[in-house]
């Protein structure tokens, strides 16, 4: 859910950025990171833990905790919370330590 009006900040409508998440065509906006765009779409599970398959979302948002690691354009373990969203990115959840395909 995106904030429309805010008493201190302004969030003007920005240029949409199309990308693909788990095979679905979706849209983020200029200025988004991958994680923030997914969150705005209601996707809060970004990965599953390696051993117990527990859903993980993002926790720290500044690239420290590795909770947000996802596969981006085939490259695993990308810290989506600090990676800017680029048009055409293919985003997938990882369920393993990350294999370069």
């Amino acid at each position, binding site marked *: *859910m*995106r*904030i429309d009006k*805010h*008493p*201190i*900040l302004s*969030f003007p409508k920005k240029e949409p950025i199309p990308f693909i998440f788990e095979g679905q065509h979706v849209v983020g906006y200029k*200025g*988004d*990171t991958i994680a*923030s765009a997914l*969150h*705005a779409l209601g996707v*809060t*599970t*970004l990965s599953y*833990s390696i051993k117990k398959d*527990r*859903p*993980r*979302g*993002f*926790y*720290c*948002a*500044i*690239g*420290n*905790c590795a*909770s947000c690691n996802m596969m981006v354009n085939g490259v695993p373990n990308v810290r989506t*919370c*600090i990676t*800017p969203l680029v048009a055409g990115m293919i985003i997938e959840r990882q369920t393993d330590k990350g294999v370069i395909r």
Partner: protein
Amino acid sequence: MKHHELIIIGGGPSGLCAAKMAAEAGIDVLIIDRSPELGGQLIKQTHKFFGSKAQYAKTRGFDIAKILIDQVIHHPHITILKEATVVGLYPDRVVTVYQHETYTRYQADRIIVATGASEKFLAFENNDLPGIYGAGAVQTLMNLYGVLPGQEIIMVGSGNIGLIVSYQLLQAGVHVKGIVEAAPTIGGYKVHASKIRRLGVPIWTSTTVQRAMGKDHLEAVELIDLDAKWQPLLGTERIMSLDALCISVGLSPMHQLLSMVNAKTKYINELGGFVPIIDDHHQTTVKGIYACGDAVGIEEASSAMMEGYLTGLYVATDMQRPHPDSDALKEKYDYELDMLRNGPFGIKTKIGLEKLRKDDIHAQ
């Protein structure tokens, strides 16, 4: 291998202030930051800051960031690398950087580690559920990206960050059901607490989170009261439904890079945990490598700025290239820093710094 006289790792308030001083002394500076934007955590701060004029009191955090960034981006002696993560630090002052899938090595004459701090975590059952965020993450989502973290939230921690972020959540239109605080008293400034109480948000002291519940996402938490010895009081459990929990239980200095060069650290509770041992010039136990800001002790951004200025000045002096106004500025920033630490909230820091000074180990 590229060379810079001074490499500053971290472009937050203390790194930016250090860069300004060093550059004004004529030193060639490289600032490296892993984020897409400089300014550290300041860029997410929508509230007006405390302190005095020297710390830009009554200016909103993100505006202070703009001022500090403005001072460096156009400076001819300062080069900036963004979205660049320092992956290696070496005792001969080589810094290795990973940026956009490229690995580059830099040689520096002096290094300042100004990498800030990271959120502490709280241990309870199911604390890894999506919907449980650090306070910084909530601020980032709301204030940088304009995305709501949830609709019904509980804040854990009544320090300044917990109180301020609760207020910011309310401004963004999120319902803050309450603030949970394990201690018997509120941790942060009472003016922040008063603002929250006016808005009808309860602060539950001597309370903690026992566990979180939910299938793929947070759905509820179980709160429990604590007795005078901070032990859970059985029978006081209650369940509250929510879709987001914000953990704001303190920060930990983030100086892991320094362990790559075996800089000595010391555990000092009052400063937030393990901190690098630094001398009066902010030099670590590794010659030529300095540290400042939250990475050496958790305080406010106002202190980080003053420490940054001082460290920049000291590095310049140590390089035999003192800033033209070195003595006057050192005196000014020393005075400001002391003033910031002079009240009851500064006592903890002062005790911590005393402990740090005790068995001083200077650089070899």
